[in-house]
Structure formats: structure tokens, C-alpha cells
């Protein structure tokens, strides 16, 4: 056995979808999390319902780098159909656990292989009814793995207890199966691989959640009142979480509802309804992914021009077109920034983690009403559907911002002398009234056609021009309101790195590796469009700013060049997309194409321990 590798490896389980292995995988993830070790889980699932190969990867990393690791140190192979590629995917020196009923040869000698008699062990579990053997059988590999790498059984129990909502019977049936695995492994297997877990205290006070749940919860704390949606992977669970949590968190004594969630007939209708509700004065949102967003184009333009508050979550998957519905991407950025015919520019929020999904969940609703415009929130499949460690969600630290709304009294005070699209404050944001306002001078007529400051129809060239210029001013104003970027400067940094969204963890890991290589970098994570002054200053400060993103065309780079032509020559693009979450590997390699580390490695800094195998792009072939 090589030197022990502790809390710094990744585990991949290759199985068949519809086989119920997600309970098993979640149990492993949660147990490790409860051991205090930083951990993440990523589900690589097919776009069908049953019978196709699926993989779940768990990464443990004592330093907290939880982006995708291109190396698979431990592979658990349950699916005969993917056995060969699973075997091939194990990093040299890694461990390979496989179901012994798969009658295929283990041809590699550079790894440790363990055969697992899963079928046999589950049949021996008398309490498991025969129709559930396939399902509960997954717990066998949990037990074997627990024994071999050292997952705390108490934590496994806690994870099962949580999963089964504290119902003892199923918890114990599953736990007993885990223990059967443990017992068998203890009796029959000899540890020959280097991977070990040891308890830490790095997850104290943290939670585990996915971005879609976080977004829904954030929206609920933002007082969401109306959501219309149409099912689409990977956004579906966002709307479904609203259905899950609204009844709990907005329960009232009288049993009545302060909200409505509507499954629309398609995405055009979903956004149309949300726009109607937002116009009506409700905190309104919709959630979708690429194809749905494309269908929302015309309505997005209407909301922009008619100045209707609405929030649009786009949980990105890889496109164009239907693409790979179950793979992640940051590919909708340029499209969203200029969605719709004619001159337009969008306000876009870019949450970087689950915590921000929650935070932007409520902030987006504030911003929509403040700016009277659609607010797009671009999450992605990796952030939205996978489990992430996170700081606990924080209660909103500012009161709800309902924006500029005039009540009956206000209108009376103004003697009716107001204009829906008048810029009274010089910030480009006009005042609005809400339907139901009983003042006889409160009403106005909303339209997507040319209108003047009093919302009257017009075809006058100079008025059309004036209104459009005000919208431009409003976009300037938006810069003051949207979340500022996160800047992490390093003294003596030779290069600036600019990233956004779910790549954060992988970028930080790459930075640490580069620092070890001798290349110091500063980092800015952009959290919104339009870009504010801080973004410009950061770019100004560095000779080169490398823009890292998970798409083909370098879309953030495109938008930055558009907005900062004078600085464009400094901006370099590191962009890559293949549907898999970002890894430190391609980021590091990409950055090295532009910036070379100083010759000598900096004093004392140890090499980052994670071994690099000859990993390929797009891991699995």
C-alpha cells in the first residue's frame, strides 16, 4: 500500500438509473459531511427514466476544494453495462469495488479491486421483502465502503434517520443492511488501497442543500406570491420546492393562501402569467432552463419595454437546442444579456453557490420591483440539482423593497398629476400604480407599443427615442443596486482572474495549484450584470485578466469586451464546455496558456496533494 491518503479523494458509483441508488449515495455523502469533512456530491444522470447508466461522484477534500475532480480514486461498479468504462476510469493506484454478479474480468493490475457479493448479502437480510431487494441492496455497498474507508456508522444511521423522516422501521432495515455489508467486508476484505476518511471539524454549523431548493426558499423569504412554470430539467425541482415549502412557511390560521403556483401549458404562458401577476403588483417569478428561456424571448422583451417586475430563474443546462438536458453549462449568458429583438439589455444575477441561490432568491424579487424590469437569475444544473455544503441560509437583512408604488393617497396628493413613465427622480425609474387602486386617476394602460411618459400610445420619433434613453439610464442605475462582485486580491498578484457562478470552487482550487506553481493571482467573482465600477477597476488594475467560464464561446468575455472596449485587449478567455462541472484541471491549464509562473516555486508551499492522473477531458468515454 502506498502512503495513506486521507480526506482527499473522490468516489464514483456507477449504477443504473431507476435503481434507487440515490438513497445510498446520499447516505454516504451525508455521513461524511457529518464527520466534519468537506464533501460534495455530483449526479451524472441520463436524460431518461429507467435502465440507463448513471454515475454519482462524491469528492472529499480536507482543504474544501469541492469542484469536480477529473480523477476517480474509488469507483463502485454496480452496472454491468458500464463496467468496462468504470474499470478504466479508476485512477492508477485507485480502488475498484464491484458487484460480483457482473461476470466481467478485472483486467487492471495498477489498482485494488474488491468484489462485493451484493445479491447474496441482501438475500440473507430476512427483513427485506423480496420486492425491495434491488432497492435496499444498494445499502450493501454503503456498508462495504464504510468499512473499507472508514465512514462512521453512527453518522450513517443519522443520515438514514433523516432520509426516512425519523421512521424507525425503514431506517433500521436499511441500517441493518449497511451493517451486513460492514460485517462482511470486515471478515472478508483486506485493505490494499490508500484511501481513508478521518473526522474533522470543517463542516460545523454548515448545511447541505441544492441550489434549486435554496432558490425556492429564498423566494419564499422574499415573499413570492405568484409563480408559473413549466416542467423542464434541471429547473423542475425549483418550482416543485415552492410547492413543498410554501405550505409550511406561509401557513396561516385560516388555511387560506397568500400565493399561487401555477403549472402553465408552456413557457410562453409561464412567463406571460408571471408578467401579468408582476404587473398586478404581486411578487412574481418563473423558473426554466434553456429551451424554455428561448421561448420566453418575446415576453421578456415586453417586460423590459413595458417595465414589468418579474423574476426569471434560468437553471442552465448545456445547449444549443435540446442539447444534453442533464448536463451543466454557463452557456445562456450572452443570449440572456440581449434577449429579444430591438435594443435591450438585461439585469442578470449570477449566484455562485447555494447560499447565494437563497440570497438572490429574495433579492431578485426586491430588484425586480425596485427596477421595474425582468431580473434574470442564472444558476446551473451543477449548482441547482447537486448537494453542496453551505453556510446556513440567513434571514434577509433588509426589509422588502417594494419599489416605487403610488397608493390611492399618493395619487390624491399628486392631484392625479403623475405619469407612469415619468422619470421624477432622475434615476430612470418611474412610479407605478397597481390594479385595484381605487383612485379614479390611478389607472394607466400598459402596452408593448410606443408610449409616452403618461403611458399614452404614440408614434412620435422623439418620444420613442426619449423613453428608450431613459431605459438606458435605468440600466445605469441598476449598477448601484445589483450585488457587487466578490474580490479576493493577492499581494503581488501577476494576473487577475474573473469568474462567476458555480465554477467558483474549481477556480479557487486552480488558483491554489497555480500559487503552488508560483503564479500569484487575484480573483474577482462577478455576481451581476450590468457590471459596476468595481469590475472595471479590477480589470484596469491587472495587466491581464483571465475570464474563466463553462461555455464554448467565452460569453462573459464577450460581454466584458462589449462593455469595456478600452480594456478589451487585456481580457483573455479560458472557456470550456462539455456538460461536466468545471474542474480545476482545465482551468489551471487554460490560465497557464496566458500566464506563466515565476521560474522558482515559492518557498515552503507544498504541492497540492491530489494526484493528477492522465485524465482526459470529458472523463468517461
Amino acid at each position, binding site marked *: 500500500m502506498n502512503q495513506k491518503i486521507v480526506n482527499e479523494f473522490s468516489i464514483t458509483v456507477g449504477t443504473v438509473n431507476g435503481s434507487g441508488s440515490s438513497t445510498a449515495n446520499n447516505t454516504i455523502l451525508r455521513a461524511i459531511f457529518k464527520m466534519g469533512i468537506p464533501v460534495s456530491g455530483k449526479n451524472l444522470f441520463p436524460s431518461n427514466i429507467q435502465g440507463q447508466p448513471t454515475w454519482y461522484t462524491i469528492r472529499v477534500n480536507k482543504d474544501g476544494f469541492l469542484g469536480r475532480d477529473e480523477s476517480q480514486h474509488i469507483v463502485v461498479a454496480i452496472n454491468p453495462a458500464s463496467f468496462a468504462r468504470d474499470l478504466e476510469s479508476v485512477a492508477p493506484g485507485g480502488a475498484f469495488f464491484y458487484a460480483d454478479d457482473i461476470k466481467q474480468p478485472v483486467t487492471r493490475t495498477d489498482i485494488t479491486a474488491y468484489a462485493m457479493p451484493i445479491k447474496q448479502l441482501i438475500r440473507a437480510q430476512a427483513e427485506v421483502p423480496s420486492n425491495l431487494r434491488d432497492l435496499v441492496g444498494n445499502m450493501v455497498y454503503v456498508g462495504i465502503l464504510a468499512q473499507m474507508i472508514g465512514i462512521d456508522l453512527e453518522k450513517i444511521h443519522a443520515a438514514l434517520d433523516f432520509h426516512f423522516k425519523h421512521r424507525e422501521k425503514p431506517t433500521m432495515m436499511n441500517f441493518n443492511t449497511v451493517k451486513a455489508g460492514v460485517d462482511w467486508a470486515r471478515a472478508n476484505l483486506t485493505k490494499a488501497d490508500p484511501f481513508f476518511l478521518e473526522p474533522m471539524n470543517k463542516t460545523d454549523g454548515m448545511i447541505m442543500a441544492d441550489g434549486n431548493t435554496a432558490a425556492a426558499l429564498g423566494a419564499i423569504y422574499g415573499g413570492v406570491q405568484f409563480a408559473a412554470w413549466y416542467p423542464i430539467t434541471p429547473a423542475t425541482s425549483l418550482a416543485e420546492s415552492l410547492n413543498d415549502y410554501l405550505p409550511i412557511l406561509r401557513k*396561516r390560521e385560516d388555511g387560506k393562501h397568500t400565493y399561487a403556483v401555477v403549472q402553465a401549458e408552456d413557457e410562453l404562458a409561464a412567463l406571460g402569467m408571471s408578467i*401579468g*401577476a408582476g404587473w398586478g403588483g404581486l411578487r412574481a417569478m418563473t423558473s426554466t432552463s434553456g429551451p424554455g428561456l428561448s421561448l420566453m424571448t418575446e415576453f421578456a422583451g415586453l417586460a423590459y419595454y413595458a417595465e414589468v417586475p418579474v423574476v426569471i430563474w434560468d437553471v442552465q443546462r448545456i445547449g444549443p437546442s435540446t442539447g444534453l438536458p442533464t448536463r451543466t453549462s454557463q452557456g445562456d449568458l450572452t443570449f440572456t444579456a440581449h434577449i429579444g429583438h430591438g435594443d435591450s439589455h438585461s439585469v442578470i444575477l449570477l449566484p455562485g453557490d447555494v447560499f447565494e441561490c437563497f440570497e438572490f432568491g429574495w433579492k431578485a424579487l426586491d430588484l425586480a420591483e425596485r427596477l421595474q424590469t425582468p431580473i434574470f437569475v442564472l444558476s446551473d444544473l451543477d449548482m441547482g440539482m447537486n448537494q453542496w455544503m453551505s453556510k446556513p441560509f440567513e*434571514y434577509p437583512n433588509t426589509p422588502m423593497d417594494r419599489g416605487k408604488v403610488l397608493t390611492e393617497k399618493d395619487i390624491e396628493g399628486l392631484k392625479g398629476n403623475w405619469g407612469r413613465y415619468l422619470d421624477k427622480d432622475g434615476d430612470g425609474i418611474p412610479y407605478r400604480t397597481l*390594479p385595484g387602486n381605487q383612485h379614479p386617476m*390611478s389607472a394607466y394602460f400598459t402596452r408593448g407599443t410606443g408610449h409616452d411618459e403618461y403611458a399614452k400610445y404614440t408614434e412620435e420619433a422623439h418620444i420613442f427615442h426619449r423613453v428608450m434613453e431613459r431605459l438606458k439610464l435605468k440600466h445605469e442605475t441598476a449598477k448601484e443596486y445589483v450585488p457587487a462582485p466578490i474580490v479576493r486580491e493577492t499581494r503581488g498578484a501577476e494576473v487577475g482572474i474573473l469568474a462567476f457562478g458555480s465554477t467558483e470552487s474549481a477556480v479557487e482550487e486552480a488558483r491554489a495549484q497555480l500559487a503552488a506553481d508560483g503564479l500569484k493571482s487575484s480573483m474577482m467573482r462577478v455576481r451581476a450584470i450590468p457590471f459596476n465600477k468595481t469590475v472595471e477597476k479590477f480589470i484596469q488594475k491587472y495587466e491581464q485578466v483571465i475570464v474563466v467560464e463553462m461555455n464554448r464561446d467565452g460569453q462573459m468575455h464577450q460581454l466584458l469586451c462589449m462593455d469595456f472596449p478600452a480594456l478589451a485587449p487585456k481580457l483573455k478567455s479560458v472557456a470550456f464546455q462539455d456538460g461536466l462541472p468545471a474542474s480545476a484541471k482545465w482551468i489551471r491549464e487554460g490560465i497557464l496558456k496566458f500566464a506563466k509562473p515565476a521560474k522558482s516555486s515559492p518557498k515552503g508551499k507544498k504541492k497540492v496533494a491530489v494526484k493528477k492522473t492522465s485524465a482526459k477531458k470529458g472523463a468517461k468515454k
Partner: protein
Amino acid sequence: MTQTLPMAGAAAPTNTAGLTRKDYQGSPSTLCQGCGHNSIASQIVAACYEMNLVPEKILKFSGIGCSSKSPTYFLNRSFGFNGLHGRMPSVATGALFADASMHGIGVSGDGDTASIGMGQFKHVVRRNVDMVYIVENNGVYGLTKGQFSATAEVGLELKKQGTNQYMPIDICMESIASNATFVARSFAGDPKQVKELLKAAIAHNGIAVLDIISPCVTFNNQDNAYHSYAWGKDHEAPLHELSFIPARDEIMIEDIEPGAELEVELHDGSVVKLKKLGNDYNPTHRWEALKMLEEAQRENQLVTGLIYVEPAKSSFTDTYNLVDMPLNRLTEADLRPAHETIKMVNEMMF
């Protein structure tokens, strides 16, 4: 902009809401003289006035088209939303959640509803959203200058468009097929019937589809010679002058007795056969309604009147069991969960 209008409820001469007819009016129409859509707008004014509705309690919606311009020509004191072509239903559906005590009146065209808007139309009907859905049906696209719509008669010929090959979509049959709870048909030139049906539709809880035949005086010419004007007595050289639209009067019909038929000649010489539903017709049988429509299609008749109604059903918003206060008057206290809940939420996350 600074004159103060009377608050609803203030003492005033005319209706029991204390409002004059003027309080229900809209801006001057920019539609063609003689367009059927204009008289429908007038009847909306009349119906709301006579029903003593407060304009502030009405929401107006429309799509895009000549017909969809109408909401600016009635109820200036009501909020209105003129949205996208074919997408009026979704905007209305969302907006009506804002304050469920309000009435929704939507105006659409046959292109807006039966071509691009078919999907949203069928679904707003199916959901039984509480609103009046008026189709100002002229069989053509007025605003884009006279292409066929999906309700155009089969065999109709139009210059530049050729001959229409398809059976017309029957708005009323479509509504009933999708389980509408109120379906009626009328003719724009029959203001009395339009008004009475409007009143019934506004009073209905749920979707009320009103298919109103509203001839386009400018483009719907069955005559193959599109816009042809005879030059001189001999009629020898008809001319196609697209940019000239002569002023015409709207076609108005005398009262038809229930059960009676009337042939109405349109400006272009084509004829529609109207038939008013008889007193013996029972509009609560879905089955009879379908039968009647199917027969009328074969007879090439336009049967007018209340075709189907199912009064008992709860409307879309009803099914959501909303609080009594209009949703858009709720405040942070009603909407943001209490501070202590955040701990519970975090615990739910594991």
C-alpha cells in the same frame, strides 16, 4: 392631467355606482369608420354602466390586432394591458390573481385567438379563468391588411392570398370542446344582443367566451376583385387601389325574434345568415350545444345567443383558496416568514 375626477361612490346623477356614462368611456377610436369593433366597444361601455360596475374594479386585456386596440376605446378609468399577439390569456391569468375581486374583460381577434393564440385560448378556457373573453371575429387579419385568419370561410378568395383551403375554426365549438362554462355568439351589428350577452358574461363566474361576428369593412371582401371600384357607368375597368379605403357605415340589423333567421349583406356583397336561438333552446346541455353548432356549420348558419352555460363551477382563482384581502395589498408581515423559521429551514437541510 390635473383635473380631479369624481371618486367612485361620490354622489352623481346617473347609475347606482354614482357614475355617469362618461366615466366609462375610452379614448377616441382609431379604427376604420364602420368597423364592427367600434360598436362592441360602445356596448362594453353601456353594459358596465348599466350594471353599475365601478371602472376601477375592472381590468382590460388584449393581444395585438385592430380588435386588440379596442381596450383603449372604453373604460379609461380601468387598468389595461395590451400584451403580445396571441398571448392575452396568460397575462390575464396572472394579473387576475393580483386582486381576485376585480372583473377581467379581454378583447381579442380571430387571428389573435384562433391562429397564433390557439394554445393559450384553449388553456385559459380549460382553466375556467374568471374573465370575459371577447373574440371580435372578422375572418381576416385586419391590422396586417387582409390575410386569411383561421376562422375564414373555406373557399374564400382574397387578392394576394389566393383561395382559403381550410374549414373555419369555430370558436364556440372549440370552447365547448375544452369545457368552457359560458359560450355565446353574437353579431356586432346587433347592439342589443351584444349588450345583453356582455352583461350575462360579466356576471358569470369563470370563463365567458363571446364570439362576436364583427365584419371588417376594409378587408373582408369575398368578391374576388379586391377593393374594386367601378370606374364610370360601364363598369369596364375595375381597379385595385389598395391604399384607398372609402368611408362606410357600420352594418346594423333590426331586432331578430328568438328562433328567427336573418340574412345580412356585408359591404362587399357577401351574405351571412344569422339565426337567433329560440326560447325553447336549453343552454345548459353541453351535448345539445355541440349538436346545434354542428348542424349550424352544415347549414352555414351563424346561430347567435347564449349557446352554453354551466353556472355552478368554481373559477380558476377560486380553486386557489386565496385570502380575502387582495393579494397585491399584502405586506411584508403577511409575506415574509417569521425570523425564527430560518432555523427550522436550515435544520430541514440536514
